[in-house]
């Protein structure tokens, strides 16, 4: 729908994942405002309910079908329900879903905000600038895999765990045939189970932490039995497919010349350092590693929304009991407020919507949602405590190991900047070495650099442009009366 056809002052939701969809569905149920949902992907669902792009020609027998991906998804019933609510809203002229729309910035304007996006649906070279006015803005931008460098991690065939899963969910491609999955966190299990179910030989899931850490979190676990059942389901798949799950173990090196050919794994000692005497080499064709997720905070940081830290010290958007940020007219829901999974994102999205329509704090539904958010947040905090990055994650780094993949800055250069030139955080390292200055703007190496500099996660870098823009799009922007 072209800009001129959109009502001028609706709610604009950035992100069509669980949080954004739930927010949209509740707004359509509870209010009478126009709802626009933008997403960079080719359809609704986000990373969690990621689907193949809808076929251009629905009679093509070779086209990917979302139905074929059923086994890879959890709680598709909720997705179907939320999406059909949005579709009903679209049919009634009350909602719009703009896919392939990359939001690159948001600026304050009279009566709300203006959202600037690039519409990439036409394909390369045919991008189009889109501006939307928002009376109320909802940041539901989700999260991306957190990566840590290790020797060989830049070899082709080494991906993030989420990257392996995205290939599977959106492309029906199981990378392999032999694949190793490593890092930490419950997310590694569905990735490995999905690959094994699609015929890949998963040589192992290498989880850096010990399951006994969860014993300290029994209260949060007991209150969230569905989470337990979900995990048990994946564990059963791995058992059936004879996938070994090795705890207190990490992938310390990937080997190969033009592509990955093998990995070395090592057991971690009690203080979280890989033991050299336990090195084991395993032949593989692909690797997926993930150390949890980093919330996408670019828009929140650009807008100056107050941030806070989650249980692992990661910066997240600070919200009140209605999911409102410190900026008036801006709410946030889902992983941007702290990584906690889809069920939490859905509850927060609903709560944000109720806040926007001015629901009463005392109604039963609001109270129920708040309880759910509190319970799932407690589980998320337990998960962060049970799955920290091990103290010895950087032991295996060699001086020539690349840390910043974009600018090709090595661990030796980064360590020199810290030890010899006095850099104490990622920003200073970046100034001295260019680490974090390339295309990805430090999204991939930022966490590692921050850890190497001895800090926590630090304050996130301000990235004015959330997505790189073709210059033509900027040039073609017509000035519109706001």
């Amino acid at each position, binding site marked *: 729908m072209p800009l001129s056809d959109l009502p001028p002052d609706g709610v604009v939701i950035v992100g069509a994942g669980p949080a954004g969809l739930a927010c949209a569905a509740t707004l359509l149920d509870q209010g009478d405002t126009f709802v626009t949902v933008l997403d960079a992907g080719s359809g609704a669902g986000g990373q969690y309910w990621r689907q193949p792009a809808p076929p251009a020609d629905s009679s093509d027998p070779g086209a990917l079908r979302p139905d074929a991906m059923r086994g890879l998804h959890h709680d598709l019933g909720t997705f179907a329900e939320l999406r059909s609510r949005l579709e009903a809203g679209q049919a009634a002229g009350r909602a719009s879903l703009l896919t392939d729309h990359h939001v690159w910035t948001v600026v304050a304007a009279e009566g709300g905000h203006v959202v600037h996006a690039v519409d990439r649906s036409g394909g390369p*070279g045919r991008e189009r600038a889109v501006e939307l006015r928002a009376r109320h803005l909802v940041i539901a931008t989700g999260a991306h*895999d957190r*990566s840590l460098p290790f020797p060989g991690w830049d070899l082709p065939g080494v991906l*993030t765990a*989420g*990257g392996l899963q995205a290939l599977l969910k959106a492309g029906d491609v199981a990378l392999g045939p032999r694949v190793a999955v490593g890092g930490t966190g419950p997310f590694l299990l569905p990735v490995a189970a999905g690959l094994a179910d699609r015929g890949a030989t998963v040589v192992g899931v290498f989880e850096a932490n010990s399951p006994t850490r969860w014993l300290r979190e029994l209260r949060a676990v007991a209150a969230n039995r569905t989470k337990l059942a979900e995990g048990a389901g994946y564990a059963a798949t791995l058992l059936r497919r004879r996938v070994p799950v090795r705890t207190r173990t990490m992938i310390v090196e990937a080997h190969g010349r033009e592509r990955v050919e093998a990995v070395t794994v090592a057991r971690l000692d009690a203080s979280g350092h890989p033991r050299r005497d336990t090195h084991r080499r395993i032949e593989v064709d692909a690797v997926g590693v993930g150390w949890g997720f980093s919330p996408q905070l670019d828009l929140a940081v650009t807008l100056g929304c107050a941030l806070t830290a989650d249980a692992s010290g990661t910066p997240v958007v600070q919200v009140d009991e209605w999911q409102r940020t410190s900026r008036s007219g801006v709410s946030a829901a889902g992983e941007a407020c702290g990584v906690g999974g889809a069920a939490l994102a859905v509850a927060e999205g609903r709560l944000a919507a109720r806040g926007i329509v001015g629901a009463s704090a005392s109604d039963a539904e609001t109270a129920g949602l708040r309880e759910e958010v509190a319970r799932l947040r407690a589980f998320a905090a337990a998960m962060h405590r049970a799955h920290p990055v091990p103290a010895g994650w950087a032991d295996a780094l060699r001086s020539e190991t690349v840390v910043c993949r974009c600018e090709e800055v090595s661990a030796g250069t980064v360590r020199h900047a810290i030890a010899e030139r006095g850099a104490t955080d990622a920003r200073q390292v970046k100034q001295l070495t260019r680490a974090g200055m390339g295309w990805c703007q430090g999204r991939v190496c930022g966490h590692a650099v921050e850890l190497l500099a001895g800090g926590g996660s630090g304050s996130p870098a301000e990235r004015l442009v959330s997505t790189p823009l*073709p210059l033509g799009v900027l040039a073609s922007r017509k000035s519109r009366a706001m």
Partner: protein
Amino acid sequence: MSTFRFDDVSIPFRDGQSVGAALVAQGILSWRTTRLEGRPRGLFCGIGICFDCLVTVDGVPSQRACLVRARDGLDVTTQEGSGYAAE
């Protein structure tokens, strides 16, 4: 089956796949070399975050293969360096 061109090869794909997924499905794991060390790169994050997967599509450089949808007759070429105009 629909195909696109990748340098001089014809790559089949299933409608709905990204250029990156189609290449990987054919066993092609890298399609770019880095600017300084000439290291091979392909998919890493798979979701548009890392920019490792850059390709030139229909003459437009620095497109993320993991995001660009494969279309019949697309002309995809490998890219050397960062793709910045200055290089």
